[in-house]
């Protein structure tokens, strides 16, 4: 049953094209989430359910939320409200919603018992991944933890307002009072 795979692939490529060509960051993020969901469906059809779950939880969940936070932080101000109102018009969310509907229909079709949606007869289960991850790849896991620690410390240090700017802002506040 390769049709589901190619449909998901078409959705992924189309959504990614829309990401690169959008002018507004939030519109691009909507399409990027759809693209990641489509790739997750492709993972599932390829027989990698654990990778599919991680793609949705970490990529489409955590990393995209981080992007949305930053976009919202950069848009503080009065015109943000007007822009928010503009974003709620149907023309903007209808495209990603339609693509998501295609993916949802595919998912429901796959979940019908009896359909041979997963083309790979040998599904690599999460258990096998875990056994290998904490066996031969243990050193890579340790290195990944070091990388994440570095990312954490770096993001904290860079995201912090420096002391001079803080003092300046406090001065402005006192002037305003």
């Amino acid at each position, binding site marked *: 049953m*390769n049709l589901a*795979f*190619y449909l998901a*692939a078409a959705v*992924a*490529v189309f959504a*990614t*094209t829309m*990401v*690169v060509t959008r002018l507004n*960051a939030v519109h*691009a*993020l909507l399409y*990027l989430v759809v*693209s*990641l969901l489509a*790739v997750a469906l*492709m*993972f599932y059809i*390829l*027989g*990698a359910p*654990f*990778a599919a779950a*991680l*793609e949705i939880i*970490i*990529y489409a969940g*955590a*990393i995209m939320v*981080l*992007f949305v936070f*930053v*976009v919202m*932080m*950069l848009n503080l101000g009065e015109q943000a409200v007007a822009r928010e109102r503009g974003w709620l018009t149907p023309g903007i969310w209808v495209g990603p919603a339609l693509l998501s509907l295609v993916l949802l229909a595919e998912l429901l079709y796959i979940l019908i018992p009896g359909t041979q949606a997963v*083309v*790979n*007869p*040998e599904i*690599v289960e999460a258990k*096998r*991944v875990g*056994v*290998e*991850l904490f066996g031969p*790849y243990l050193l*890579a896991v340790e290195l*990944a933890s070091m*990388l*994440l620690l*570095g*990312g*954490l410390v*770096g*993001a904290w240090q*860079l*995201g912090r*307002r420096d002391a001079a*700017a803080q003092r300046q802002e406090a001065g402005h506040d006192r002037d305003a009072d």
Partner: protein
Amino acid sequence: MTATLTDHALLIAVVLLALGVCGVLVRRNLLFILMSLEIMLNAAGLAFVAAGARWAQADGQIMFILILTLAAAEVAIGLALALRIYRHFQTLDADALSGMRG
């Protein structure tokens, strides 16, 4: 798992990677450059998972998990840098940063 399906999955990974490269080269907004980097990392993960599925081995998914941690660390640092640049220059235009002092 047929060989043609692996070929097509790798082909789609190449297409996604090319779209990401186009995004990095064409867009000048730092947020879009970061998004394009995510697209490229995701395409690399797709190639790994497709290859792992071809031989029914778990190594492909393990490499995908490592790419996932790399993407998380990269996006945290990248977004923190973007915030800092926005505070300093009041813009996210990458060309605005090309001039150096001195």
